[in-house]
């Protein structure tokens, strides 16, 4: 039986795709900002072996990196209510994204922190800067700059992984696609278009992150 | 009759004109020492002779094999020309013996036993007969370079190219390698060597080629040239390396 492709029926539902893209980008943005923040704290904790934080972060990082994202998501959304914590779809998706990126960022930034030449740190100590000051002014900038490519890759990976959040009905692109397929029954066409959209999103986000790295992180003080 | 005949060779790397018309003849059994400052094009010239660098104009004749611009089939050429590198480039996952045996077995389809005998012979010639089963990381730089020479010799080339083969060696190891090369020269091997070892060039070389800014600036008998350079460039080069 010949199948005739029909892409036109997607156009009338385009607002769902549009909202989906916004949703995916929102999730990614919040996930990135909070995730990197967690990652910076985690990087110091692991690199300097801070008490309490070091074991906590170690367990956290290994748990996240050795379990699938979808299981983490389901645990947050379906599992936490048993403890009395009820979250909306949006909240659960965001928390899962933040926790996921936070763990990977910790390791990526830690590698950057540990690669800062000891000489720079010694010079700063000699100038009587506190450990925290040294980190903020000397180490962090260099670490982020060096690891920015790896961090950017991870952010894109997490953005692509957000597609799984559709399974808890979070408002993002895949969920929007599912909604459309339930209306026009053109699963292949819809997902074909959405796949291309994800591809373009990934290209766009990668470029944006590259520009950020070049003009914000690498900016020289004039 | 020249074994190697280079005519009007030009080579550009993008806009950088590295070889500006090289004409060179090398006779069989002759030892040619190529000297010059870094950037003068001497390594590029050497590497053009076995096809590691392509050239943009001119031609190359090696023992009857003619290479023209844009030629990609270099197999016949490389069967006649062997090369030893500054960084040795031994295969780390193979023993010295296996390093030497590899090309004969794979390229010339020599039988295993014959190749092994050939390899032992080549290693003996460079004074490393007892190191057949050693891996490169178990040997000193001088020993590795001698294995590299044996590896090149195992293919029985007509010409051996040596690209600054002692430059990466600690000073005390340089002599053992030069001794091997001297013996090769005495046995009649045709050698073209890019080198900084001026004393060696003067004592063992039959022909000295001084390169400057992509051209052969002076050429002739080493003893004469070292004693009385005709150009200020060669004079200043000699004084800077002595």
């Amino acid at each position: 039986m010949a199948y005739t492709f029909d892409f036109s029926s997607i156009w009338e539902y385009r607002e769902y795709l549009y909202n989906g893209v916004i949703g995916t980008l929102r999730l990614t943005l919040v996930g990135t900002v909070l995730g990197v923040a967690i990652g910076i704290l985690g990087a110091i904790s692991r690199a300097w072996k801070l008490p309490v934080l070091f074991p906590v972060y170690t367990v956290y990082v290994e748990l996240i990196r050795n379990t699938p994202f979808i299981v983490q998501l389901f645990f947050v959304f379906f599992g936490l209510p048993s403890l009395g914590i009820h979250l909306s779809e949006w909240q659960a998706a965001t928390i899962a994204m933040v926790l996921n990126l936070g763990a990977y960022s910790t390791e990526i930034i830690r590698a950057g922190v540990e690669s800062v030449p000891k000489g720079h740190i010694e010079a700063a100590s000699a100038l009587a800067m506190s450990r925290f000051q040294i980190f903020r002014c000397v180490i962090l900038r260099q670490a982020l700059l060096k690891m920015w490519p790896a961090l950017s890759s991870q952010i894109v990976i997490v953005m692509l992984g957000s597609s799984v959040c559709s399974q808890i009905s979070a408002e993002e692109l895949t969920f929007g696609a599912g909604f459309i397929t339930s209306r026009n029954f053109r699963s292949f066409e819809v997902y074909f278009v959405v796949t291309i959209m994800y591809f373009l999103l990934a290209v766009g986000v990668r470029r944006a992150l590259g520009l950020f790295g070049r003009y914000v992180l690498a900016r020289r003080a004039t | 009759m020249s074994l190697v005949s280079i005519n009007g060779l030009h080579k550009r790397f993008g806009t950088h004109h590295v070889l500006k018309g090289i004409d060179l003849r090398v006779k069989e059994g002759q030892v040619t020492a190529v000297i010059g400052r870094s950037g003068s094009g001497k390594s590029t010239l050497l590497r053009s002779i076995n096809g590691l660098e392509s050239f943009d104009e001119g031609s190359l004749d090696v023992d009857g094999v003619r290479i023209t611009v844009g030629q990609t089939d270099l197999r016949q050429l490389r069967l006649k020309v062997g090369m030893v590198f500054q960084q040795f480039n031994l295969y780390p996952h193979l023993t010295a013996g296996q390093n030497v045996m590899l090309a004969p077995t794979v390229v010339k389809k020599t039988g295993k036993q014959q190749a092994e005998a050939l390899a032992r012979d080549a290693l003996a010639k460079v004074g490393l007969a007892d190191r057949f089963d050693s891996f490169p990381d178990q040997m000193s730089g001088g020993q590795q370079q001698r294995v590299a020479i044996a590896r090149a010799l195992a293919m029985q080339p007509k010409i051996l190219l040596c690209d600054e083969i002692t430059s990466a060696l600690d000073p005390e190891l340089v002599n053992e390698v030069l001794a091997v090369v001297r013996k090769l020269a005495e046995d009649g091997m045709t050698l073209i060597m890019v080198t900084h070892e001026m004393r060696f060039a003067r004592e063992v070389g039959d022909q000295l080629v001084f390169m400057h800014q992509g051209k052969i600036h002076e050429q002739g008998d080493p003893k004469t040239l070292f004693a009385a350079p005709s150009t200020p460039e060669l004079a200043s080069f000699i004084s800077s390396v002595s």
Partner: protein
Amino acid sequence: MSDFSLWDIIRNLLLAGRWTVLLSLIAFVCGGLVGIAILMMRTSSARLLRQFAVMYIELFQGTPLLMQLFLLFFGLSLTGMQVSPWLAASVALTLFTSAYLAEIWRGCVEAIPRGQWEASASTAMTYMEQMRHVILPQALRIAVAPTVGFSVQVVKATAVTSIIGFVELTKAGSMISNATFAPFTVYGLIALMYFCLCFPLSLYARRLERKINVSR
């Protein structure tokens, strides 16, 4: 509450876990074989083959795995074929794995110093002879650590196949969670089981990485 004991839950999860392991192995082995083909294309001198390989890799690395799975599942169904979740999951994960492994292995081949290429070329070896006797043996050594590291990603990726109904650990867990009304326990156990599969592989990969770095 629930009339299922903890042991019932664990037992059912373990049984489903077999399928996770099996799917992972299929994806890894088949993905490896396809990956070698993609690698050869990626490093070939034929421009068309090279471009195809580049696009193939960019496609699988630049789109969500879930979309790849859906496209394959719905796409194959359109041809009139009876597509079981097993088939769709296996093919999708195989292609996914092949793209990533090809890139990892290409990196390993490119890490081999140029001098190795030059030395073997100087003794008149052809490209295939160089690859077979000089380059690939060395590249293989470097490739073991990141390949084992990627196996962790493969195991985690199998969880996504639950969405098209393939009954592996995550899908079984969802079903059990609905039946027992104990999602915290069930998803907690699922996470633990994935952890037990992945953590040893992660540790092994890290150990291999250290060994390689020491010998350099």
